[in-house]
């Protein structure tokens, strides 16, 4: 091979690199190891992490523990999906393209909007991209954020906006746990109002009020959804006036995986499609008139438009959107609804237990889905530690995120929570378990 290249030593191939820039030593990286050795090392690291399959788990806050049907991992493990790339050559990427088209269709159905892209990195970046899109559509720079926006989504949004001269205002939390969505906080400079549904505190927001407030000033309503399963139960945000619906679809069959890879989604009205970030699959015909799918409207994207693109995103979360598409196909029209109702039932049961537990309270009255706030009579860290030492992960300490609430935790009950485990978790939090 070397001779064919006109050389006799491998080193000559690296002649274009000036000698002074060549690394004169070996990398300080451990020597190669066998598969068995590497596996044992990684298994030992994995064993040092608590996880949602080890026992009762009531921690959500944007990354949700749901049952993963066996067919999801079996299908996404097919190497034709796993080891392909962005479908630049549609004739030999129809599997990926048709799946993206199906994903776009189902995200449109769930959100009540007309166009959805082929995924964003995660719910947080999808929310940031939605806001940037709203700023392009309205040519305005002010952004109103509901109090119930996930604190990490807010931080990511602030990171994305920092260099763009945008201004953010926060709409306050009302006493029932919902965000105040009144038009007074907005004005003619406001590009969009961002409302998380359900909120970080689990509250189901009044999106109609949010839409009215935004539209009264010519602003857009951006709805961000961190628990996508809620879309199976709650009215589609698009039907309530949302202009952009974005969020996190991890709940649809994607492992928690310490927070990523998850899969962001972003849906909008067709009128705004030219401002949409990310890839889009579209239907077309082949030379013989047969239906097929291609990436389309690419003139929005960085590889064509460069510095004038709607986003810099290139690689997205392809395999995770495939997981979600398979999951949604398996659960389907009736299964997804039933699952959402079961989540609601589990959370309502847990709420009922809280109501009858001395020392625990429900600070908010707003309706919720599968997650809600529990007020405690003692610092949350102590109560959560007590539960953990009994093998129960009983929620998120809200002290760093909402200190004004006093001692409180965010508690999430999905279909994985048995009645007995809910009883046990609430008893542990109340401090009256043995």
């Amino acid at each position, binding site marked *: 091979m070397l001779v064919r*290249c006109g050389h006799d030593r491998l080193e000559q191939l690296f002649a*274009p*690199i000036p000698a002074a820039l*060549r*690394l004169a030593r070996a*990398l300080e*990286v*451990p*020597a190669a190891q066998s598969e068995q050795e590497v*596996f044992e090392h990684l298994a030992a*690291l994995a064993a*040092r*992490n608590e996880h*949602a399959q080890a026992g009762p788990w009531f921690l959500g806050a944007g990354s949700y*523990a749901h049952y993963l049907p066996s*067919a999801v991992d079996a299908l996404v493990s097919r190497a*034709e*999906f*796993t*080891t392909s*790339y*962005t479908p630049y050559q549609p*004739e030999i990427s*129809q599997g*990926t393209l048709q*799946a993206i*088209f*199906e994903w776009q*269709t189902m995200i449109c159905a769930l959100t009540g909007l007309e*166009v959805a892209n*082929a995924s964003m*990195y995660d*719910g*947080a*970046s999808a929310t940031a991209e939605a806001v940037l899109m709203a700023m392009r559509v309205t040519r305005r720079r002010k952004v109103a954020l509901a109090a119930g926006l996930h604190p*990490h989504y807010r931080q990511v949004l602030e990171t994305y906006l920092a260099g763009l001269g945008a201004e953010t205002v926060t709409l306050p939390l009302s006493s029932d746990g919902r965000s105040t969505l009144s038009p007074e906080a907005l004005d003619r400079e406001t590009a969009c109002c961002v409302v998380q549904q359900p909120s970080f505190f689990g509250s*189901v927001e009044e999106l109609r009020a949010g839409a009215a407030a935004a539209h009264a000033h010519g602003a857009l309503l951006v709805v961000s959804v961190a628990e996508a399963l809620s879309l199976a*139960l709650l009215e*589609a945000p698009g039907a309530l006036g949302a202009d952009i619906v974005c969020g996190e679809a991890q709940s649809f069959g994607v492992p*928690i*995986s*310490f*927070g*990523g*890879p998850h899969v962001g989604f972003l849906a909008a009205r067709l009128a705004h499609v030219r401002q949409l970030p990310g890839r889009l699959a*579209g239907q077309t015909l*082949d030379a013989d008139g047969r239906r*097929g799918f291609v990436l*389309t409207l690419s003139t929005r994207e*960085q*590889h064509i438009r460069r*510095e004038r*693109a709607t986003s810099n995103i290139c690689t997205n979360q392809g395999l995770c959107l495939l997981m979600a598409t*398979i999951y949604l*196909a398996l659960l389907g029209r009736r299964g997804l609804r*039933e699952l959402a109702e079961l989540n*609601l*039932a589990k959370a*309502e049961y847990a709420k009922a237990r809280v109501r009858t537990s001395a020392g625990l309270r429900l600070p908010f009255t707003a309706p919720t889905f599968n997650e809600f706030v529990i007020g405690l009579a003692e610092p949350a860290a102590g109560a959560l530690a007590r539960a953990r030492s009994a093998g129960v992960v009983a929620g998120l300490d809200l002290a760093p995120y909402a200190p004004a609430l006093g001692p409180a935790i965010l508690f999430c009950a999905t279909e994985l929570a048995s*009645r007995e485990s809910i009883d046990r978790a609430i008893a542990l939090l109340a401090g009256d378990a043995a």
Partner: protein
Amino acid sequence: MSSNASSGFGYEEPLLFERSRPGRRGAEVPAPDVPPADVARLLGPLARTDLPGLPEVSEVDVVRHFTRMSTWNAAVDLGLYPLGSCTMKYNPKLNERVARLPGFAAAHPFSPAERVQGLLALFYGLEQLLAEISGMDRVTLQPAAGAQGELAGIMMIRAYYEARGEKRTRVLVPDSAHGTNPASAALNAYEVVSVASGADGILHPAAVAAAMDARVAALMITNPNTLGLFERHIKEICEIVHARGGLVYGDGANLNALLGVARPGDMGIDVMHMNLHKTFSTPHGGGGPGAGPVAVKELLAPHLPVPVVVRRSDGGFVWESELPGTIGRLHGQHGNVGMLVRAYTYILSLGREGLLRCSEMAVLNANYLLARLAGEFHVPYPGTVMHECVLSDRNFAPYGVTTMDVAKRLIDHGYHPPTIYFPLIVPGALMIEPTESESLEGLDRFAEALLAIAAEAQSDPETVRSAPHRTRLRRLDETLAARKPVLRWQSDDASR
């Protein structure tokens, strides 16, 4: 005709929605062990009544649907996938198994650090490895892909100047750069100034010096560049940028050429991203997820995204979020962690010798292909390349055969085409990156397929122009898709 595939079962498969039949379902939900929820009472008008847009299909339907669709995809596990600058190397199966261990796959980002020490140790270890491989000082693993890494890097540069009270408004980007470079700069409100490559395909110090002034925050440079050429003036170029107070951003998309050979940090690069889905073998997944860690020199460390993992003196690990100069948080949690686990596994498997061998073989393979194809194919920038080579369709112009035609005809031979029409500075570019994963015999077969097409372009150009001929679908009409966008299935279509 040489062939890498024969016609086999070619399955048809409708859309999920067209398979849907009322009452079917593919997953059962457990019977409730708690009282059923009274949706009307609890949610009233906030609830929806139905999900008519979702399909009703059985588990067998779903399994056959996606299995059939999978057979329509080219993939690395099926054969050579020589997309230039995408580094479609083999993805070891161990990585997949490890990432699925419950201690990784079911770990939660809000668990307290002391309860997930294995993950924090992995983060810390991977940061150390990537810093050593790139020759940089500190690493953030948070960016979810290369483009988000670029965004993070440019944000850190902006934060650096803001902290110094300097106002700089421009970013220099060579004309051979990936589109993400100018787009990432623009997302930071920088004005993008294009710098022309020289006649030899690389960037010259004089061109950079001419564009470099006190308005320029940074130069973004890919090395090896998108022509597969090593930017051999890189050190001098970095010195010019630094001398006028600027910083240099390294696009690490092509790092697969340099492992253990040379380090961007030693060349003067101040900040760079690495694509774990390229160089470090995490699967491309039909378009992601990737991961785009960013490595920086000490001067940018105060601006790293938060949280950062810190090793305590007792050997334990904690998250640190209080970093006064930080650009903030970039990802909802800690990045595409499953990809970090795979890349860490890959680096430990290869070890220092394996990493070096990987780059040596990647460079050898690219040069071998170039040597076999030069002549029949026009080579716009002759010479020794690194991990990829760029050809063009110039020789076929007399026959009316374009790069698109060559690419589509290659599909008939059973190969995924190279990256086409990029870099933009080469008209009709074919950018070929074989990676280290291919054997000599595999490269020879691929070269023979391309040479057969080159001959066919003269002898029977129409066959090349109308390719592909052997795929389930013929050439797809991208213009129609853009002119009349159909971006979701609607039931009206079903009746047609």
